[in-house]
C-alpha cells in the first residue's frame, strides 16, 4: 500500500463500488441486470425491479489481496408509490477502510421509464490519520426501448462531493448501457463507463440460462483489459452467485454473493 502511494497518483478514495457478482461476471458491468439487491449501490434505478423484499450480501477480494477485501449487504423492497433500499459496504482492512451507506428511492413512471436516486454517505478511516466523511448523490434511469432492448444508466456523485480537510474530490462517474435480450434465456450487455479522471471504459458481456436454475456469465472490459466469468444458482428463493475477473498484471479478483427474495 505504501509503495502504491509513492508510485501512483492516488486520488481520493471510493474507486471501488459494491457490485453484484452476476454483473461482475458479465464484464465488470455496474448495471444491475439480474436484480440483485447489492446492485442498487451503483444502479439506483434498478430498485424498481424488486416487486418483493430482497436481501443480498456479497464478499470478495480484489486482486487476491486481503487488504483489498470487501463486504456488502443491502435490502430492497417496494413501498407506497415507489421502491426503496438500504445498503452498507466496507472495503479495506483495519489500517485503511472505506465504508459506504446508502438510501435509495425509485419510482416507475410508466412501463417504459423508471428513475432512481441514491443518497450515499462515504466514511473514510485511516489508522493514525483520522476519519473523514462526505455525502454523494447518485441518479439513474432505466428506459425500455422495445421488448428486447433497454437503455440504462446513472450518474455517480453528481453533486461533486469532496472529502477531508484537503477537499479531495470523490470519483464522479457516468455510465450508459444497452441491454439486449435476443432470446428469453440470454442477455447481452454493452456498457460505457466514464470516470472523469480516467479514460473511458467499454465493457461487454452476456448471460445465459444453461438450466432453469443455473445461469452463466462472461464478459470483457477494456482499459485495462480484464476478462470475467461467473455462475449463478437459483434454488427456490435463494440465489448464490460467484464471479472472478482477471488482470494483465495482478492476481484474480473474486466475488461471492448470496441473495434471498421474500415472496
Amino acid at each position, binding site marked *: 500500500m505504501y509503495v502504491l502511494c509513492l508510485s501512483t497518483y492516488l486520488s481520493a478514495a471510493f474507486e471501488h463500488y459494491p457490485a453484484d457478482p452476476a454483473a461482475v461476471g458479465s464484464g465488470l458491468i455496474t448495471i444491475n441486470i439480474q436484480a440483485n439487491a447489492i446492485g442498487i449501490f451503483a444502479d439506483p434505478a434498478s430498485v424498481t425491479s424488486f416487486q418483493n423484499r430482497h436481501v443480498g450480501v456479497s464478499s470478495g477480494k480484489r486482486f487476491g489481496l486481503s487488504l483489498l477485501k470487501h463486504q456488502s449487504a443491502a435490502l430492497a423492497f417496494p413501498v407506497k408509490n415507489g421502491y426503496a433500499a438500504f445498503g452498507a459496504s466496507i472495503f479495506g482492512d483495519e489500517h485503511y477502510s472505506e465504508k459506504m451507506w446508502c438510501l435509495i428511492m425509485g419510482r416507475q413512471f410508466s412501463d417504459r421509464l423508471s428513475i432512481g436516486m441514491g443518497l450515499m454517505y462515504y466514511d473514510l478511516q485511516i489508522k493514525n490519520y483520522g476519519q473523514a466523511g462526505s455525502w454523494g448523490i447518485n441518479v439513474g434511469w432505466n*428506459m425500455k*426501448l*422495445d421488448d428486447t432492448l433497454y437503455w440504462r444508466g446513472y450518474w455517480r456523485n453528481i453533486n461533486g462531493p469532496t472529502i477531508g480537510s484537503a477537499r479531495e474530490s470523490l470519483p464522479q462517474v457516468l455510465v*450508459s448501457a444497452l441491454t439486449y435480450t435476443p432470446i428469453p434465456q440470454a442477455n447481452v450487455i454493452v456498457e460505457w463507463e466514464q470516470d472523469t479522471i480516467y479514460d473511458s471504459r467499454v465493457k461487454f458481456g452476456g448471460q445465459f440460462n444453461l438450466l432453469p436454475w443455473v445461469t452463466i456469465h462472461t464478459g470483457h472490459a477494456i482499459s485495462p483489459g480484464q476478462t470475467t466469468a461467473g455462475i449463478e444458482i437459483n434454488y427456490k428463493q435463494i440465489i448464490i452467485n460467484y464471479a472472478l475477473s482477471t488482470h494483465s498484471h495482478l492476481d484474480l479478483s473474486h466475488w461471492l454473493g448470496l441473495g434471498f427474495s421474500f415472496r
Partner: protein
Amino acid sequence: MGYDAETSVSEEDLISAQQIIATPVTFNAARSILTSISILSLTDIEIINSSKNIHVLKTNRDLSPAAEYLVQSIQTVDQLPISLSVRERISFNNGVRHYWRAQGRSRSYHFGILLEKDPWEKNIADHNSIYVQWNSENVQMITGDHQLIGGYGLISWRTVAAHKGFETINTLPRHGKGITGYRSSNEYWCTRGIGGEWKTDYGQVSFSLGRTYRDGTLENGAVKLDITGQHITASDLHQQNQLLENAATVMWSRDLQFGRLGLLVNTQNIEDPSKKQVNAASASMFGSKQWNNWHIFGESAFIKHTTPALFSGALFKSKALKYLVSWRYYPTDYRTYRTQSFSEWTSSAAGETGIFQNVQVKYGKNKLSIYSDLAEKIEENNPVVYNNLKSETGIRWRWQSKKHHFLVQYKKSNQSEENQTFYPDITAYDSYKITTKGLYKYKPTRKLDLRWQINSTLYNDNQKGLGFETRMNWQTPSLIITGNWIAAKIDDFNSRVYFWELNLPGEMNSVAISEDKQLVGVKIQIKSKKNYQMYMRWRAVWNNLSFIGTPEQRSALALQIIF
C-alpha cells in the same frame, strides 16, 4: 436549409427543429414551436399563424424550403397528456464530451434538464441547466434557467446573433418573442431565476429576475467574462462562478394600429468575491410596421454614458423578389446584459457602423441571392477618425428540381488592417478573401442521394485552399447510412475551407480544414418504430493527402427516445 458550414444557427433553433421532427405534438404546440424558430421568414410566420389546421399548413406551397421541410415532418396528435424526450450524446474527439438532455411536458407544464461535460472536465455536471414552465392561455411563468428575447438583439437576445449571409433576409426582420426556457448548452448565456409573461388587453408584458453565477473577473471597473465554458486548467477553475450577476428585465410590446411597439428595460449588478461591483442599466425601444409590401423595423438602445445604439431595416416582399436593407450604429462599449446584435465585430469594446443589403429573386426553379455588407469598426467615439473598414459581398445561384440540385456561390470580403484612416482618403484594403463553392446533388430515388461539393478559398492572392467532398445518404428499412470523403489541399490557416460534419441530432458542427487532409466518415442511424433512434458516427483523419500514417479517429454515439 441553405446555410454554409462557416455559419452558426442558434442551438435553440436546432432544438426546436428537432422537437418538431422527432416528437408528436398538438397543432397548437406545433405552431408555437415553429414560430419560435428564428431562421424562418416573416412570410413563413404569417402562413403558420393563419393556418387553421395541419392539413392547410402542409398543403401551402408558399413556405420557404426550410419551413416546408419542418412542416412536412410534423406528426400531430389531438391530445398529449404527457410527453418526454430524452437524448444522450457521447463524442470521442480529443477527450470525451458527454451531453444528456430531457425535455417534457405534462398538461400545462413544460420542463427541461440538461447536463453537459466538455472534454477533460472533471465534473460530470459541469454545465447543468433546469427549468420548469407553466402555461395558461394568457400567463406563462418560468422557474429556473431562462432567457428573455426582445427587440432585435441590442439588449437581450438568444445565444447567437442573426448571421450575415444569403439567408439573413429571413432572420434579420424577426423580433424576439419574449420569455422562454433556456435549452442551449451555451454555458454563459442563461439567466437563473424566475420569469414570466402576461398577455393583457394593453399588450404583452414579460419580466425576468435573475441571480446567476458567471465565469470571469472584474478588472478596473470592467467585467471580463470567460465565455469559453471550459473548466479544465487551474486558471479556468480560478475564474469559475466568480461573478454573481443580479439582473432584472422588463419588456412590454403591443400591436398598435400603426404597427408594433415595444420597450425593454434592464438593470444589472455584477459582484465579485471581494465585493467589488459593476452596475449597468439599459433600455431600448423597438418597433415594426407593415406598409404595403414593405416591412420596416428597428430598435434603439440607451446605455448610460454612451451614445445610443441604433439598428433599423426595411424588407420588401413580392412573389418573386425580396429585398432587405439594414443600417446599424453601435458606439464603443455599448454591449450589456445579453446583447447579441447583428454585427461584424463582436468584442465588447468595439463599436461599428454598417449597412447591409440582401436580395433574393425567384424565377421558376432558379433562386438568386445577393448580399453585401459595408462595415466600419469604431474604436474611439470620434466621428472624424475612421477605423477598420470591411466590405463583404456574396452571390449565390441555385437551381433545384426533384432529382437535381445545383448551387454556385461566390463571396468576397475586404478588410483594412490600419487602425486609422483619415477622411477623405480611403486606405487600400490590406487583406481580402474570396471563397467559392459549387455543389451538385443528385437524388435518383427517394432513398438515395449523392452530393459533390467543391470549396475554395483565396487569401490575399497567395494563400489558397481547395477542398472536395463526396457524400452519400442511403435509407434502408431499418438504417440510414451517410458517408462522406473530404480531401483538402490548404496552403495556410487563412485559406481554410469548411464542410459540414456528419452531424448527430442537436449538433451543428462543421469541419474546418486548415492544412492538407484526407477525411473519411460514416454515420449510421438505426431506425425503430418504437419512438427511439440510435446514431453512430466514425471519422478517420489523415494529416496529408496520401493517406500515409495512422489516422486520427473520432467517433460519437447518440441515443434518443420519446415517450
